[in-house]
């Protein structure tokens, strides 16, 4: 599973610079966001080191031209999931709880 997720993230990373030149970039971003929604919980639980790639993808999509306001809002929510993954790990490690992180 780790290899499959790594491959998917690598493909997405390679695709992002080409988005402005592609027709239907908005639809492609929708599909990327849907993929991220599916895999972030798995990555957070099983392969937290891969969150770096996820955060890079989120950041690149936010600053890419074709992303709509709605999509940027979705990406910010996904970014917040990375913060929540830290809080979950902190709680599991016995750190005192704090208020839930908000979307950036």
């Amino acid at each position, binding site marked *: 599973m780790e290899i499959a997720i790594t491959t998917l993230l690598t493909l997405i990373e390679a695709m992002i610079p080409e988005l402005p030149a592609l027709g239907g970039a908005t639809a492609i971003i929708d599909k990327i966001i849907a993929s991220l929604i599916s895999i972030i919980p798995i990555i957070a639980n099983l392969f*937290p080191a891969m969150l770096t790639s996820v955060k890079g993808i989120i950041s690149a999509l936010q600053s890419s031209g074709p992303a709509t306001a709605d999509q940027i809002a979705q990406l910010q929510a996904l970014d917040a999931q990375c913060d929540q993954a830290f809080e979950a*790990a902190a709680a599991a*490690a*016995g750190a005192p709880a704090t208020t839930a992180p908000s979307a950036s």
Partner: protein
Amino acid sequence: MKLAQYGAAIALALSLGACSNMQTLYGEVTSTSISPQAALAAANAFDALEVTATAYLSLPPCGGAIVTCRNATAVKNIVPAVRSGRTARNAIEALLQSNSGAAIPIANYNTLEAAIQTLQSTYTQFGVAVASK
């Protein structure tokens, strides 16, 4: 003696040159604000450190025969640093979005930098490898 003085002068000149390059790269830094580029660079650096923290906290606790493990002292340093850094990073990112191109208040940047330094020194102390893209 003279050689040592020349050496000191060269070292000073090199360090001043480095400062000049830093200002070119990051733009003007004042006592109250910092360029958006520098703030964004710090935010991105923090993101990598936060991901590393998440992975580190997911390790089993140290003890017994476990080699790759999380140290309780490291956890005590990491958790508050990530939380304070996250608050500062979120504030910086909100400012970057709302005033595009405007300078960022130095207070937010300093808080983020303090968190970054705490995390970096903790990782160095406990031999934690920082996640990279």
